[in-house]
């Protein structure tokens, strides 16, 4: 162990190449994880923040809010289902918004929500023609007090306050009354207009102690299959693209970890080969294979820990530098910790490939060696 630490201290240049490669991999891991978290938050924020237990879509909507329609008679039925405490309608229309002061062609993509039940952090619906804006729209030049012109019909929507973490489909959102949503939809997307009493989807708050998944089943039974209801967590996962994004990024992250294993394995195999004669001598004077391997393991862990720390500093720096609303990058502490943990495990696994080589070294070989 002492020799391993001494070598690290006295000949750090020997470990520079591996440290640099592992730093790159650590940075890459955290960047990929941050991108994944940012993308997921950008797609799911508006749904995740709902203070509801069940999300109700139309049966043929394929769990897409813009394609969903809930007729008033189905809402009445749902309100009567045992376990339902409160029901609110919701609708969304995605449009371009002209921001005062921006160039004529520099529009901000927005999703204008009309809501009845307030999501987490959003006050009660504001008066007609006004909306709360998701803070990511600040990056597009939006400011409180400004009036945006939304859609080709340039429907006027005044921003009356900020809300946080409510992005939808990668866009900043505006939270308005259902009247504002209906007016904007009729003026700008006549193809997407819903009936005067219809909503695109419903949010349901369950009574105390009611299981959300069971309540969702009860709601669908009560409407004779005219609805497709999901507990909120399932509704978040059902957002188109979320599962695909998560699985694709996790595969890439997995491959990156495997590459880290290969890099550590190859590097320490190389070091072990170079030290074969030295290990032969050490074994001849009484060092055990376990002690020698622990030295290799310690070096691998120290090198990886240094690389992971530098990688984390780079990732945190990037997180601070990237302005909100530009690249969908969100670095969570849990992501940094898990990335470091994965890399350390990769280092231990990679290092284990050198164990066999250390065990095979014959102390007798030291006698014939000139080193």
């Amino acid at each position: 162990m002492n020799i391993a630490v001494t070598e690290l201290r006295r000949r750090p240049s020997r470990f520079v190449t591996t440290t640099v490669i592992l730093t790159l991999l650590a940075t890459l891991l955290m960047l990929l994880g941050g991108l994944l978290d940012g993308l997921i938050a950008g797609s799911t924020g508006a749904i995740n923040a709902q203070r509801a237990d069940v999300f109700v879509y139309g049966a043929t909507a394929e769990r897409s809010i813009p394609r969903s329609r809930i007729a008033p008679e189905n809402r009445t039925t749902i309100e009567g289902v045992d376990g339902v405490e409160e029901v609110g309608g919701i609708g969304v229309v995605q449009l371009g918004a002209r921001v005062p002061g921006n160039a004529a062609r520099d529009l901000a993509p927005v999703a204008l929500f009309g809501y009845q039940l307030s999501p987490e952090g959003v006050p009660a619906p504001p008066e007609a023609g006004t909306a709360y804006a998701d803070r990511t729209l600040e990056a597009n030049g939006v400011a409180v007090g400004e009036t945006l012109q939304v859609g080709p019909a340039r429907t006027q929507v005044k921003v009356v306050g900020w809300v946080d973490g409510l992005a939808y489909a990668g866009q900043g959102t505006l939270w308005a009354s259902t009247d504002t949503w209906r007016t904007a939809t009729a003026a700008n997307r006549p193809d997407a207009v819903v009936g005067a009493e219809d909503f695109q989807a419903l949010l349901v708050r369950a009574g105390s102690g009611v299981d959300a998944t069971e309540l969702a089943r009860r709601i669908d039974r009560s409407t004779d299959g005219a609805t497709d209801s999901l507990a909120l967590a399932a509704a978040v996962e059902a957002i188109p693209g979320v599962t695909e994004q998560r699985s694709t990024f996790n595969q890439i992250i997995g491959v990156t970890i495997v590459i880290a294993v290969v890099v550590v394995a190859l590097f320490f195999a190389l070091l072990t080969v170079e030290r074969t004669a030295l290990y032969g001598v050490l074994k001849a004077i009484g060092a055990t294979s376990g002690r020698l391997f622990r030295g290799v393991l310690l070096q691998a862990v120290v090198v990886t820990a240094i690389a992971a720390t530098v990688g984390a500093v780079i990732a945190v720096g990037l997180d601070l530098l990237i302005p909100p609303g530009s690249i969908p990058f969100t670095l969570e502490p849990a992501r940094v910790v898990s990335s470091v943990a994965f890399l350390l495990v990769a280092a231990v696994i990679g290092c284990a490939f050198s164990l066999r080589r250390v065990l095979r070294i014959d102390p007798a070989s030291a006698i014939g060696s000139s080193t």
Partner: protein
Amino acid sequence: MFLALREMRRAVVRFALLAASVGLLVFLILFQQTLQAGLITSFIGAIEHQSSPVLVYSVDGLRNLEGSVITPDLEQQIRAVDGVGAAGRIGQGTFSVTADGDVTSAAVIGYEDERLGAPTTLTVGRLPSNADEVVALDSAADEGFGLGDSVTVEPGGLELAVVGQASEIGLQAAPTLFTTYETFERVVTAANPDSGGALPAVIGVAPADGVTDGELVQGIDDSVPDAEALTRTDAAKGTPGIDQIQQSFQVIFLLYGLVVPLVTGLFFLILTLQKAGALTLLRAVGVTGGSLVRSLLSQVAIVLVLGIGIGIALYAPLASQRLGSIPLSFQTGAVVFWSVLLFVLGILSALVSARRVLRIDPIEATTGAGVKA
């Protein structure tokens, strides 16, 4: 050379493992290259493979076919621009449909003029000539979008007959249907009876004689502030999300591209160090350093050729399959590019080992020191 081949025969497992590792990495690179191409085609194939040379979006659409809406006033302004030879409405929407008994999402594109928005990659059947006829994405044939199949728009129940199939016309990774503009309007009403009618998403325009596509784009952008004209290629590339897909894959390719030479280089370096004694002895009995380096490089070349061959052999049968809703295709260009690049990088990576071989001093045979670490 002779020794190099003998060594490979005797340690066949060791070299086979390296070749298999390289093969696996080559396979992963080629497969992901194909996945990238398939993903992009399934997102924007419909834009790339439609007949209109120029597409005019509303500025509000932010280059997104689904988000763009052309109001009647904007349409008149576009049609009135100098240099417009022909103009036709193109509508687009994503709808729930029942196909083969299952409810699924389908992108529907309606064109007014066959020269401005019809699919150009018809593989079987014909273009729609009657109401409620569609051309479907050929790779979705097994999902109820085959020639002769009937697709029902939900919840209105409008029946659409598939009269043709075209390749690479996907949009937003969904099964895609091309139809006439009249049928598209009927689809919108069937899906949402409360709708106030369909508006075109874009206007397909062709330049008048003597006007280039680029000049037409410039002319429309200069004359109509609320419109954004793009050539077919720019419209496809400029679709939101495409850049991000390409950038993400480029990072992955760079990573893999670095790993292959890294693995090969380290493997042969370890091998060189292990053989240090034997190599020193060979130098002592008169074998030149150049000869040993040639042996080393020939081993590297053989391993790389075998590895790349294994990679291509694994990739070829998978390249013509489907991955979920994404149809894949064999990418000859990618195979050639990556084979050459990885071979060259692999050979270059062995130069570190070659340098060590050249540093062997034959006199060390008398001391047993071999290659210095």
